[in-house]
Each structure stands twice: as structure tokens, then as C-alpha cells.
């Protein structure tokens, strides 16, 4: 964070924060790599924003250490860390024009007038605000204010850019556009981005890694596909998207994975089951299951009846009930859903052995 123009590498070591008796963050250790796009994901009150504020230096941790490029910055005040920061609601200076807002961090750093002019002009062009230089924030749309906030946070080439739910105030189409733009800015600047959101699809779409928080604890960190396909626990699995939970009995290790009984049929799973023996939960994403008229003996499948459907345009979400009463949701092509519903009788739900993962029964 101290050398401008170079992405920072951050190490959090056993960080904790209590507000009175409330434990906002508990024993968090996390390495943030140089130039990575890390998303802190979790419901509100999960500790993700507290961690971001600790990174920025606005909140002092109750315990633990924070390092930037190997230097202990735990006690360094925010103004000396100079991480770029984009706030929820943007926090632009209302009495300054677009240009003045963006020039602010450069003026603070006592750059020459010529350099300020160059760099402000360059970044205004890059974020697409040309022609709005003299306007006040109140005269801009939400998306434009967002761009000013991004430009202001990036113009002094900070080692890390911290973003606190920057898109929460934007409508959906603008959100998508700004997400793409932010991804591009990340590639162009090469700076380390730390992004806070409670929107799982945003997290999966943008990040190189996702860190999932709940109740002040860091539950899992990994690439989007890792956390989505192999969540560490039930909370992560459910938070990242819709998922079906099927009880499996008598789980034991087998060739290339594990095997067990699901609704009295043998099912095979490629996932490892070292820690899990006996009864477990098999979790499968709706898009990993298909509907078939029948299932062969060595294919994973259970019988179910379609009860309702939701047309989503590109696909249909079909709700089914299995013979033993479990509720399952699948995402299938529209005509398959129509056929399954019109039959009114039993269909087979099938899934490949590579898909799905085992979670301890009833536990987290």
C-alpha cells in the first residue's frame, strides 16, 4: 500500500474485532495476493465490511496483525496507508467538481499542477467521464458518480483498491455494465482489488478468489468455481446459489470416491468422503441434474414427480418431490419441463457422479 504504482500483497494474521460484547470478526487469517481480485462475500453482519474497514485503517482490530508487502501496518493510520477506497453511496465531495474530486488525492500528495492535470485528464477519459469535468456530483447520474468514485480512488495508483458494495445503489442493467468496467480497470491497472458484496452472482462473476464470511468468521476462500462446486460447508453451499440436499445413507469410500444409498438406490460420488461416514447429505446444484424417462442401474438417479415450474426464458426451473418426500429443484430446457409436467407421473432425476458433494448430515 505504500508504493504507488505497484500492487500490494496483504497478509492478515489472526485479526479479531469486538464492539463491546459483539464479536464482529473472529481470528481471521487471509493472504491477499499481488494484483488479485478478492471478493469478501457474506450476509449483512457477517464481518466482511468490518474487515474491509480494518484493511483501510478506519477500524482498529482488537487483536491480530496486518501486513502489507511484509511490513506491519496494523497501527498505521488510514491517511498513511492510502488504499484507494470506493464507499457505498460513493462519498464524493459534494462541493467539488468532478475534476476537483479526482484531483484531491494528487493535491494531497503535492503533485505538480501539470502532473495533476495530465493524470486527471487521463483517468477521466478512461472511465468515460469526458465532458463532465466541471459538473458537481449532484448533477451526475448514479453510474457517473460511481465512475468518479472509481477514478478518484485509482488516480493516485494505490497498491490496493477497496470497494464497499459499490453497486448496491445501481439498477440491474447499469450494474452489469459497471461490473464489466471494473473488471477491465482491474486488468488495466493490475492493482490488488478487495471487493465487498452480499450478492453471490456478482462475487462469482468478478473475482479471482472469493472469501465467504458468516457470523464474523471466514468460512472458505477459493476460486469462484472451487467455492461453488466444492463448498466447505452447508452455509457456503446454500449462500452461493440454489442447491438440492438429498439424504444419503451408509456412505463409505469406494473406487474414485464414495458410495451410499439415496432413496434406496445406490449412488456413486466422485467426491472424497474421508471425514464423512454413515449418513450424509448429498448437495447438487439444480443445473447439474437432468430429467430422464428412466435411469439405468449404474446411473445415479431417483424417482420424482414434477409439481410446479417457473419459466425463466432460457430455461425452466422445475420443482419436484421425490418418492420419500424430498423437495428438489432442477434447471432444465423448457420443452423437457413441459413434458415432465404434462405426464403428471413419475420421472427420473439423474446426475453424473462427478457432480454434487457430500456434507455431514445435519451439520454445518
Amino acid at each position, binding site marked *: 500500500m505504500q508504493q504507488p504504482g505497484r500492487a500490494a500483497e496483504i497478509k492478515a494474521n489472526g485479526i479479531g474485532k469486538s464492539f463491546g460484547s459483539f464479536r464482529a470478526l473472529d481470528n481471521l487469517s487471509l493472504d491477499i495476493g499481488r494484483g488479485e481480485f478478492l471478493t469478501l462475500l457474506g450476509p449483512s453482519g457477517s464481518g466482511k465490511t468490518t474487515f474491509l474497514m480494518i484493511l483501510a485503517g478506519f477500524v482498529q482490530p482488537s487483536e491480530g496483525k496486518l501486513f502489507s508487502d511484509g511490513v506491519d501496518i496494523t497501527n498505521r493510520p488510514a491517511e498513511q*496507508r*492510502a488504499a484507494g477506497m470506493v464507499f457505498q453511496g460513493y462519498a464524493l*465531495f459534494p*462541493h467539488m467538481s468532478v475534476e476537483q474530486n479526482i484531483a484531491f*488525492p494528487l493535491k494531497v500528495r503535492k503533485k505538480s499542477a501539470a502532473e495533476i492535470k495530465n493524470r486527471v485528464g487521463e483517468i477521466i477519459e478512461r472511465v468515460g467521464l469526458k465532458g463532465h469535468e466541471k459538473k458537481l456530483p449532484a448533477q451526475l447520474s448514479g453510474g457517473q458518480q460511481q465512475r468518479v468514485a472509481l477514478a478518484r480512488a485509482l488516480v493516485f495508483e494505490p497498491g490496493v483498491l477497496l470497494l464497499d458494495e459499490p453497486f448496491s445503489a445501481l439498477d440491474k442493467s447499469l450494474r452489469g455494465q459497471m461490473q464489466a468496467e471494473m473488471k477491465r480497470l482491474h486488468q488495466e491497472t493490475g492493482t490488488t482489488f478487495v471487493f465487498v458484496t452480499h450478492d453471490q452472482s456478482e462475487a462469482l462473476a468478478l473475482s479471482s478468489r472469493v472469501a465467504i464470511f458468516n457470523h464474523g468468521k471466514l468460512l472458505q476462500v477459493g476460486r469462484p468455481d472451487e467455492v461453488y462446486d466444492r463448498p466447505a460447508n452447508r452455509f457456503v453451499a446454500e449462500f452461493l446459489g440454489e442447491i438440492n440436499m438429498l439424504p444419503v445413507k451408509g456412505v463409505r469410500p469406494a473406487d474414485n470416491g464414495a458410495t451410499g444409498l439415496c432413496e434406496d438406490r445406490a449412488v456413486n460420488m466422485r467426491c472424497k468422503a474421508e471425514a464423512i461416514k454413515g449418513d450424509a447429505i448429498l448437495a447438487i446444484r439444480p443445473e447439474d441434474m437432468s430429467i430422464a424417462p428412466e435411469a439405468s442401474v449404474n446411473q445415479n438417479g431417483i424417482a420424482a414427480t414434477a409439481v410446479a415450474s417457473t419459466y425463466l426464458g432460457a430455461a425452466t426451473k422445475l420443482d419436484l418431490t421425490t418418492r420419500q418426500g424430498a423437495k428438489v429443484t432442477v434447471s432444465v430446457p423448457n420443452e423437457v419441463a413441459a413434458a415432465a409436467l404434462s405426464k403428471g407421473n413419475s420421472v427420473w432425476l439423474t446426475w453424473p457422479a462427478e457432480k454434487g458433494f457430500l456434507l455431514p448430515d445435519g451439520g454445518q
Partner: protein
Amino acid sequence: MRGTLSDRTGAALLMAPLLLFLILAYAWPFLGVVKWSFTLPTPGLGQYHALLTDGLVQSVFIRTLRIAAIVTVVSVTAAYAITVVWVRGSPVQRVLAEFCILVPFWISVLTRAFGWVALLSNRGLINTWLQSIGFISEPLTLVRNEFGVIVGMSHFLIPFAVFPLASAMRSLDERVLLAARGLGSSRIRTFWTVFVPMTRSGIIGSALITFVFSLGFFVTPAILGGGRSVMIAELIYLRIFQSPDWGLGAAISVVLVVFVGALMALLFRYVKPKQLA
């Protein structure tokens, strides 16, 4: 029946007694004063002409404007510092600041003026103390001059200057200040380049209120000025009660009211009335 009166009508009805009172006790008598200014001692614009040519009246006007300007700067500056502590200080600081702001309201303006005499006079607390520690040999002239008037008036007006500032500071988005610090700005720089400009409407409101109040001060300058620093209200009093010259006194009053009215109009162009509470 509920809901038959709109909020507006309801508010107007509630305000009506006050309005009626103001018309009977203030506007109507004032029209009488206006009449005097054109009719005494002889009908015509004679008094307004005198006002423009009378050296004494002009020097009092200029002194009044000067004192009001200095008092405004002193009061708003002091009030700003107090308000920062009141709005943004630690819980203990807030209670202390609130106490300091509210207590003066419970003490009459007369008592306060005499209190300052006791502090500032030649044999008052300040001069006695400064002499006893050998800092000065002759007492300083702190009262019965403009300095005493400015001290007394500022002391009276600071609490009034606080409220518009407090309202501006309370409505300020905390995150903007965090953003400034996060961008590398020191606390002092953030205060001057972000905090102060963002409370501009409060400063304008506070300054105009203080200035308008200052123009009409009577008791404080009469006591602390000791007759040597006469301000406009005291001049009106002298013209009406001592050197019976009702026409001139009335003309000065009219000019003062018109001037204050213009300043109030200016005030409400910059500040919404609710920001002053």
C-alpha cells in the same frame, strides 16, 4: 372529523394567534413610527435628508456596522469550535459543550453585561490578576469602549450562532470525511478542505443571524460601552427619550428595519428556515 383539514391549513390556524399578536403589537405600532418619520416635526422627507447629512448619525451607523461585523466574525469562529466539540466530540465533551451553550440562555442580558463589567473594569478581576502577577503595571482599558462591547455582545450571541452550525454539521455524511482520510488527507487538511466547505450553509446562516442580532443591540453596548461607543439602538433611544427629536429617531428606526429585512431576505435565500433550529 379527522383529516378534513390539510396540514397546511392546520399549521396556518395554529400560527394565527402569533400572527395576530405580531400585527397588533409590532406591525401596527411600527406603521405609526413610519408615519412620524415623515411627519415630525414637519411633513416631508426632512428627517431622511438629515439622516444623510448628520455626521453623528452617520458615525453611529458606521460604528454599528463595524462592531456587528467584528462580533459576527468572533462569534461564528468561537461557535464553530464549540459546535465541532458538541457534535463530534466524545460523550463527555458533548455534555460539557451542551452545558456551555445552554447556561447563558438562563442568565439575563443585564446580568451578563454587569458580569463583564466586573471582569473587565480597571479594578476588575482580569486587571487585578494581571497586575498581581506583574504582567502589567497600569490597568488595561477593557471596558467602556468598543472592546468591551464586542466581548459582551459576542458572549451573548455565540449560543445563537451555534444552532445553524450544529444543524449543518449533523447532516454531513461521515463517509465523505472517511473518504478524504482514506485518500491520504491529514485530519487538519480534511477539516479545512472538506469539513468546513461542506458546512458552508451553516456558516452563512450563523453569520447572518449574528449580524442581524448585533445591529439591534441596546443594553449590552449601553452598559459596556459606557456612552463612548453608542450603537444605533442606543441612538434611537437617545433621540426619542432625551433630546426629543422623534422624527429623526423614527427615521433611523425605519432605515434599520428595512436594512434588517433585506438581510433576512438574503438569509432565507441561502438557508432553509429549518436549518436554523
